[in-house]
């Protein structure tokens, strides 16, 4: 659940929620079926879409070691899972707090930005073929945060 709603519940310790607060809650609840559908789609199609990305990545980087490509793909799988959960909860901060600080520092050591750039282009193409426009609108902002942190680590500030 998004941080705003969590803190709203906490703040309403001994009072009823204000009308404005109830509207925020209603908006989130009304968006939940779409969020759950998108989450289910990403979960069910995980292996299929990532396999297509992996196949293309191997073609594009045929001289790169399998270990390096596998590391990039594993990180992308992680990012997708965390981003999907962040979308479900509408909580971009959780992605930053739980994964990105940790992942970007580790990733920086391996210097795989060139591979990651192509990987995320391929991934975005695949997402366009499995998610509806409405679902993409919900999911893409979360993935974009992660993508930027990995592909352009020097231009991104993440909470360590």
């Amino acid at each position: 659940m998004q941080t705003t709603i969590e803190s709203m519940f906490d703040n309403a310790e001994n009072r009823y929620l204000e009308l404005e607060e109830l509207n925020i809650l209603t908006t989130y609840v009304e968006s939940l079926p779409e969020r759950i559908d998108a989450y289910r789609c990403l979960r069910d199609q995980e292996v299929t879409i990532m396999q297509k990305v992996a196949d293309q990545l191997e073609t594009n980087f045929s001289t790169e070691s399998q270990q390096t490509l596998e590391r990039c793909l594993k990180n992308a799988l992680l990012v997708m899972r965390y981003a999907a959960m962040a979308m479900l909860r509408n909580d971009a901060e959780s992605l930053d707090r739980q994964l990105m600080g940790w992942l970007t520092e580790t990733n920086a050591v391996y210097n795989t930005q060139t591979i990651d750039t192509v990987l995320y282009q391929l991934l975005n193409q695949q997402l366009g073929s499995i998610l509806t426009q409405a679902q993409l609108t919900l999911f893409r902002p979360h993935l974009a945060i992660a993508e930027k942190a990995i592909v352009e680590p020097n231009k991104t500030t993440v909470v360590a």
Partner: protein
Amino acid sequence: MISISDLLIDNRIPSNYFASDTYVKGDLELGLLENRRGDRLLALPSTLIEGMYAGLKQETGQASGMVLFNCGLWWGKNFYARFCEELTEYYRTAVADMPMVEFLQNLKQCWTTHGWGRIELDQSYYDRGFIMVKVWNSPFAKFAENATTPSCFLESGVLTSFFSQLTGRDLKCVQTTCESMGADCNQFVIGLIKRMKPAEEMVAQGLNHDDIMAQLQN
């Protein structure tokens, strides 16, 4: 050919084990704070740290630093064992087989999640036999009053034990700057015991960090 199914062992990919959201749990009805595998955690009141410092100073005078350092050694010995145990269990790989970058990244996250401040490791002196560690927002520096010398003795002890066990060598950690003396962060230098002896003397003489490092490398 890469198989995505093969990358997903038991449909899991280990990630940030010490992430605070998932690491710290609580059964508040029983009065327990726990980590994610059920080991007990304690919230240490800042006044207790102040009280320990004051009590030790009163009872042992100048030896209080040595007492705290020895407490840190004991803490570090157990901390290292538990840290490795948790990583091995979670990543399903021996610590010796884990990439050093992931091991150190976990140490940093672990340190932060436990509220001991933010820790950074600087390996630029590694080829000259020293490991540099920086800690910001240390709770152990914050409560040292009117310090004239670095006062994170507990951390020095922990880091001594931790890196001695990690490297399999008898190392010593010496603190060269301290937040309690107005420094931006707490800096620690770790190296072989005999090489660190002069550093202890230079700290006692009040030399600054850069001068100490310059002389240590001579």
